[in-house]
């Protein structure tokens, strides 16, 4: 099955940056109501606006291999990056996942995220792969980071 890439299985078995840590500027809880998957995600940022730096993303994930692995890759890809960079990565991930297979993903932008390219062919699983990312975007907003300009500039 092309869905379960080795990278996804590795991330789901040993998720990076898992667990809830302090300090944090925002904590959000997101669920996938169709299956009951849940993620609690904490975000620590330094600075403000697009130049703010993501200092930490910690999370507690209760879900399938796809949603757990996705949260793990998310943490890998955004910790230590500026909010602008994180939003670019988010946009690229979302674009790939919702492309129905047309967008294979760019490893230079999304790193291990490319392993999720196969998910795009399974519409029921796209939500699983986006759960952590949606929580991350929500946490940025909760933390008072203005993400609107990035959304516009990155389409």
């Amino acid at each position, binding site marked *: 099955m092309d869905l*379960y890439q080795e990278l996804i*299985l590795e991330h789901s078995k040993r998720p990076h940056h898992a667990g809830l840590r302090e300090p944090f500027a925002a904590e959000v809880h997101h669920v996938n109501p169709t299956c*009951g998957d849940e993620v609690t995600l904490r975000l620590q940022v330094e600075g403000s606006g697009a130049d703010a730096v993501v200092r930490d993303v910690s999370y507690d994930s*209760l879900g399938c*291999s796809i949603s757990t692995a996705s949260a793990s890759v998310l943490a890998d890809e955004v910790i230590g990056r500026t909010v602008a960079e994180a939003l670019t990565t988010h946009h690229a991930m979302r674009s790939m996942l919702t492309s129905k297979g047309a967008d294979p993903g760019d490893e230079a932008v999304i790193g291990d995220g490319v392993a999720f390219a196969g998910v795009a062919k399974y519409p029921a699983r796209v939500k699983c792969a986006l759960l952590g990312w949606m929580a991350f975007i929500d946490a940025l907003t909760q933390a008072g980071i203005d993400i609107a300009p990035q959304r516009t500039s990155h389409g």
Partner: protein
Amino acid sequence: MSDTPFSDGELARIRAGFPILSRTVRDGKPLVYLDSGATSQRYAGALDAERAFSEQVNAAVHRGAHQLSEEATDAYEGARATAARFVGGAADEVVFTKNATEALNLVAYGFSNTVGGQAKDPRLTVGAGDEILVTEMEHHANLVPWQELARRTGATLRWLGVTDEGRLDLSQLGSTLTERTKVFAFTHVSNVLGTVNPVRRLTEAARAVGALTVLDACQAAPHLALDVTALGVDYAAFSGHKMFGPTGVGVLWGRRDLLAAMPPFITGGSMIETVTMEATTYAAPPQRFEAGSPNSAQAVGLAAAIDYLGELGLDRVAAHEHALTERLLEGLAQRPWVRVVGPTGSTDRVGAVSFVVEGVHAHDVGQVLDDQGVAVRVGHHCAWPLHRRMRATATARVSVAAYTTPGEVDAMLEALDRVPAVFGVAS
């Protein structure tokens, strides 16, 4: 021969009436459809009936002075009579709804609408100090409307718990079903656990304290013979698409005297007696509860599906599914890495079997099965509180129907054996 499973020849004939069962999925693999609890496949005869209605007699029912309208009305009312016979009730006690969810809401709103409203029947009035009883194994469709009724009226919602085995905890019945209980809503068969509840015992206990009973019969209708009089219920709801019929049609059966005491749920055309600019009086049931143009073609399709279930014989269907359930439960029991959520024996249960593969999320289990062409439901199956109670985030559910073959159960078990290897868990 009334209680034997279908033979291979009989099954082949049954399956010929469900063309979708012969298609392939996921690169040419034969479809193994084990998700009939979510929606059953459609009997071709039900589709034919819908089409024949639309092509030959379609007209507005209950209005118009022309021949088509007469014939359409006859077909629609004939469908009502068929649905009534199916549950052992009378035709004027059958209301066609959009689905079972609407049927259950119709009853729940019948209670709250009486608060300070038109009807003042004490049986249908709930408020502070009154209690509404449900169970912990309800589908959201038979839980949320009662939560809402409690919220609107100030009544208290209580629930009967579930045992570790997945049966109603009847030891709590005496303390939860009391003289304060105005209505007790419960499912005949759990859509997750497959448990068949002791309906007669529950309705007798309810009657003893003067509580009305509402039965969610969705998961019973295509599997067990239903007799509302023998069961002693006051209301029963079921859905066309779970019993080989079309989507867009459900049935509410309600006791005649109760329906007569209930205010309408949705108002508009076709449900009135007289209308002036100031006020309206309402038609008698069942028309009072069927505002607007009804789903006539779907009702006719459902009646054809009901007739077909009658031809198959629900005792044969039950025997067939019982054999499949035993085969499935035995197969799962041979796999120690699988935990069945619900009764592990085949007594008082139907062929909806939910399970967990230890260490693997249900979504992932379902995906591996799907890759082999096996369709099952994954998630909480609209019964989130029950999953919490059974300590499962999500389960995979296999659900059989009259057209399911023993070979399909075996194919599911074979596909399931791939799961431990894919996710690197012990098998």
